[in-house]
């Protein structure tokens, strides 16, 4: 049975991953709402995981190290989102705003 690996070149997956990563970078750099920045970081991590799994499927058959690494990327992304939202809630409770432009001073 032919798998997709023989029909789709590796560069296609890397292309998609690069575009998703650049989109995430734009989101982190230019969004003002803290939750939108968090979502853009998730997009970047997702793109990285796709990259790892693509390399594991195409070039690392028996060892599939990229697959293992993608599992850890997903784990770390989930942990990081939980923490980031805890921080966001704390900041929102204190400043009543989720706009990162207004939370620019360390001490009140």
């Amino acid at each position, binding site marked *: 049975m032919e*798998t997709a690996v023989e029909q789709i070149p590796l560069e296609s997956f890397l292309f998609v991953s690069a575009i998703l990563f650049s989109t995430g970078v734009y989101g982190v750099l230019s*969004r003002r709402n803290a939750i939108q920045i968090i979502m853009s970081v*998730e997009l970047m991590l*997702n793109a990285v995981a796709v990259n790892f799994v693509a390399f594991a499927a195409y070039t*690392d058959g028996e060892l599939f190290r990229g697959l293992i690494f993608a599992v850890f990327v997903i784990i770390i992304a*989930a*942990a*990081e*989102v939980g923490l980031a939202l*805890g921080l966001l809630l704390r900041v929102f409770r204190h400043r009543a705003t989720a706009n990162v432009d207004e939370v620019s001073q360390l001490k009140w």
Partner: protein
Amino acid sequence: MTIAEAVFYLLAAIAIVGGIGVVVIPNVVHAALFLVLSLLATAGFYILLSSEFLALVQILVYGGGVATIILFGLMLVRGRELPEVGPGGQWPIGLAMSLVLGGALLTAVLGSDWPRQTGEITMVSLETLAGALFRDWLLPFEIASVVLTVALIGAIVISRQEEGEA
């Protein structure tokens, strides 16, 4: 065009549209839904790459966990009542930087000569993956468990209401 290619292009279109929707749409809740769309399209990618377990993990953890957390955060921060702010003042620089980065990545991707694996593709079964995860990669796995526990406790501690706070 074979079916695999057609499915790949469809999933790629959905993922990229979802990604652009996350960073462009001013309504925060709609952007969160576009993120869910992008994450689910990535699960489709994993199925194409013969790693079905990772696709299920992606749907469960990202779609069912991360997306839910984000939507809950929006609910608690009352995302719909916040004024819809457009991009910040530095969005041209952000766009330029992301285009430069994307251009560099695409040049590297399309220009270099990636090694090909000749021969058959080894389908990674769930037993093989579990065996590798619990034997060869046991230490990172345990460390990841510790990281998750620390993150859980940290999130609870950080967002706990203390005395005198509203």
